[in-house]
């Protein structure tokens, strides 16, 4: 059964130095507040996993939390590059960042295999690209029935997956809807999970297209209203597009970035 915890306690308990950590969210429901708490608690040497590392990963990388990144597309969606990610790869600032690089289809299927309790997933992809040459976790496999040449990728099982959702009940059942990305698969694939929610309610009203993560597959739930800002939570908030555009300028320079992080993340306590 999921326990209802504070964000600070949830991160302290569930995320340790050196862990493989997935903070998922496909443009929608990105767990920014949880990422900020990881930065405040000074976690180091994390292997960050995510299909679309965007601004929160730029912040985690720029603050020196990560040594490895497993991903398929690293950019500021609709705006351009992630400057802290680029600086880490091109100049090892603030620390060296090792990459394990996939395509979206490869990453999605790695989570599916993890959630399915299988050792690997099979897809028709990657052939002819340079990705398998640089990513050992992409291997050719032949179909045992037809002999067709396909691609295998190993299951992804994060130590901990963190996602944001619209709401949970007091028993820790979580309800999310809208663009659901790979959040369900990432939670089911992980050893532990933390879900931050807009609100904890007495009773979950059914919503069209909802995904329910029952209490018994979630480790902890923290109530964090606005926890996905500047991304959005459908039904609760809209995307702060100006922030994403503004981040391009803030993140371009190391000092400006550091000052922004100190003022808006380090000096700010938990959102409560």
């Amino acid at each position, binding site marked *: 059964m999921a326990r209802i915890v504070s964000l600070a306690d949830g991160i302290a308990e569930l995320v340790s130095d050196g862990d493989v950590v997935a903070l998922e969210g496909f443009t929608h429901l990105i767990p920014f507040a949880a990422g900020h708490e990881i930065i405040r608690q000074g976690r180091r040497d994390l292997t960050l996993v995510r*299909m679309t590392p965007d601004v929160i990963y730029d912040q985690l990388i720029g603050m020196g939390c990560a040594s490895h990144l497993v991903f398929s597309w*690293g950019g500021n969606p*609709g705006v*351009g590059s992630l400057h802290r990610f680029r600086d880490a790869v091109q100049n090892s600032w603030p620390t060296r960042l090792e990459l394990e690089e996939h*395509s*979206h289809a490869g990453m999605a299927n790695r989570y599916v295999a993890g959630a399915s309790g299988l050792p690997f997933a099979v897809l028709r*992809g990657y052939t*002819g*690209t340079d*990705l398998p040459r640089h990513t050992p976790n992409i291997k050719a496999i032949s179909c045992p029935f037809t002999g067709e040449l396909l691609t295998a990728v190993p299951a992804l099982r994060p130590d901990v997956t963190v996602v944001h959702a619209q709401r949970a009940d007091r028993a820790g059942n979580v309800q999310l809807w809208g663009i659901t990305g790979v959040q369900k698969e990432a939670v089911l694939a992980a050893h532990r999970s933390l879900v931050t929610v807009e609100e904890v309610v007495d009773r979950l009203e059914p919503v069209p297209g909802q995904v329910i993560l029952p209490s018994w597959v979630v480790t902890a739930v923290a109530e964090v209203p606005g926890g996905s800002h500047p991304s959005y939570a459908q039904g609760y908030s809209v995307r702060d597009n100006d922030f994403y555009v503004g981040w391009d300028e803030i993140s371009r320079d190391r000092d400006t970035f550091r000052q922004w992080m100190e003022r808006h993340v380090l000096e700010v306590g938990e959102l409560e």
Partner: protein
Amino acid sequence: MSPGPGTEDRPEWTADEMMTVAASRQLRDGTACFVGIGLPSTAANLARATHAPNLVLIYESGCLGAKPDRLPLSIGDGILADTAESVVSVPEVFNYWLQPGRIDVGFLGAAQLDRLGNLNTTVIGGSYEDPKVRLPGAGGAPEIAASCREVVVVVRQTPRTFVDTVDFVTSVGYGRGPGDRERLGLRGGGPRLVITDLGVLEPDPDSLELTLTRLHPGATVAQARAATGWPLAVSDDLVTSDPPTDVELTALRALTATLGARA
């Protein structure tokens, strides 16, 4: 940016507008189109607003049949989910919809492209481990390039982009030449068109080498050759694109005006 015909300092349209209009014209009504953000999304929504009202837009965030009335800032903009026929998970988009070949057209951009239509969105210069420029990476592009029935590439034509050899093959066009896609087991047809701010390139039927088949009004062969990092082949039947119509330009400008927040 080279201006479209008009007077020297007051072009009637920009080269980017011509490129977007040319791309939108390639989308046939009723077909399904896998749309990336930026120029592809603008072109696809322009097609919906003009000649292809029943174009099915598929965004990799899981929005199938989205009908936004403004341009989305990102592939996961809430307006896509609000207006979609269906919102599905990301594994479902790739495994059920893209991989089996259900999508007619994939629209892709690139940082580099070679004469056989192979695309790079990963790294430029140096080595993979120590690149000169780190780009966002693959995203959905490798499988879009592999599995859509056809691919349309939309990209500005410069010598930095149109290179003899891409530094990294992120998405396969025609690989090393005829027969390569079949050998690699890629089921989609490959890049049918490359649309640029100067004109349109199409694969030669025999060699599959990208060949200039169309120039936009005001652009010249010399300009196109200067913007291409390999000896650019030019079709004997080179034609000129029709300029943007008033209807297309009005619709395009109305759409781009909805994107106030974009840099």
